[in-house]
């Protein structure tokens, strides 16, 4: 980690690969769903990257990493509970609009300006998630770094944004 703090990419890559089993086992202690485990692992890696300047080489690395891993696993579980409490998963929504009328409305708009106006009505975090992931076609990790949101938060915000857009477009179609 000391070498990684100084910018040694080879040492950093070795470190990230070596800590994976430990991080995964930390995540499994709190998360039971495999996708949650993977989300917690990815959030932990992103946090390690973000706060690597806080590691003190004179102190144990495992304690530093365990604190980050435990916190990120708790965050994933809290997010999962929040989402399952208030939202129902709709896999079709991510791919396209399941409501045929909504699709027709989208086609009928034919105007980037109209879409931009709809995006403006979204909360900032949701708009950012859609812009980075869907419009700029950034990868999740890239978008997470660019926006400062975690991978999990980006996924949730993108999902919510699509849901909100669908509702806005239906309202627009009716009016």
């Amino acid at each position, binding site marked *: 980690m000391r070498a990684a703090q100084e910018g040694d990419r080879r040492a950093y890559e070795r470190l990230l690969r070596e800590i994976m089993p430990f991080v995964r086992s930390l995540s499994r202690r709190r998360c039971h769903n495999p996708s949650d485990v993977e989300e917690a692992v990815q959030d932990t890696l*992103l946090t390690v990257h973000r706060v690597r300047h806080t590691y003190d080489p004179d102190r144990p690395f495992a304690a530093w990493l365990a604190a980050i891993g435990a916190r990120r696993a708790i965050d994933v579980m809290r997010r999962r509970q929040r989402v399952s409490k208030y939202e129902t998963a709709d896999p079709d929504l991510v791919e396209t609009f399941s409501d045929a009328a909504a699709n027709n409305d989208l086609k009928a708009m034919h105007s980037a300006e109209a879409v931009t106006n709809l995006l403006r009505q979204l909360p900032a975090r949701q708009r950012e998630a859609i812009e980075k992931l869907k419009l700029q076609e950034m990868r999740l990790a890239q978008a997470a770094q660019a926006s400062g949101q975690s991978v999990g938060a980006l996924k949730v915000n993108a999902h919510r944004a699509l849901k909100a857009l669908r509702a806005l477009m239906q309202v627009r179609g009716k009016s």
Partner: protein
Amino acid sequence: MQTEQLIEELVSGLQPVRRLRPPWLRALRWLAAVAVLIALALLGFANWALVMQRMAVPRIALECAAAGLTGLTAVFAAFMCSVPGRSPRWAALPLPAFSLWLAVSGLGCLHNGWSLHGPNGFIGDSSHCFGFIVGVSVPLSIGLFAALRRARPIALLPVAALGTLGVAALADFILEFFHPFDVTVIDLALHLAGIAVVMGIGIALRRPILAAG
């Protein structure tokens, strides 16, 4: 998104970073800077004849010392908790001083016959205490949060709670030098309300202030 792919992206984007100094050292530096500001303010504005008269009473001197110690330990604990890997038990550091401060203040209320009235009426001059604690805590909190966010804390709640408890207790410590009357129940309640408001604001704003950047 595969984890393998994420590792490749993180490695390719790696830049050297400047290591953060140990949290105890950063805490001491921040406290030293604030101590200088407080000393200048007290030398310039405090009524020292009144201060010496009040501090001659051991209970009041102990109350003042306990408030100051609560501020010092809470700020120190906030810095310690802001860095991953430090024991979460640091969060309990201000508890003894805070308990002592509450106990001695309670003793003051008892000494004054549990009077609900402060000077000049039910709330009277005690409302100034509330305003003073909140007013002094806000700029101190801004300075403290600016220092704490450099560590990009991952556990925001204890850091925000300890930090705001620290600055509010320091504000209460400063207030002791301008407090012309002894503590009453309503006065103590307004001091605690001031601390609670400062902590509530800090905790509510912890995410945009501490997590960003």
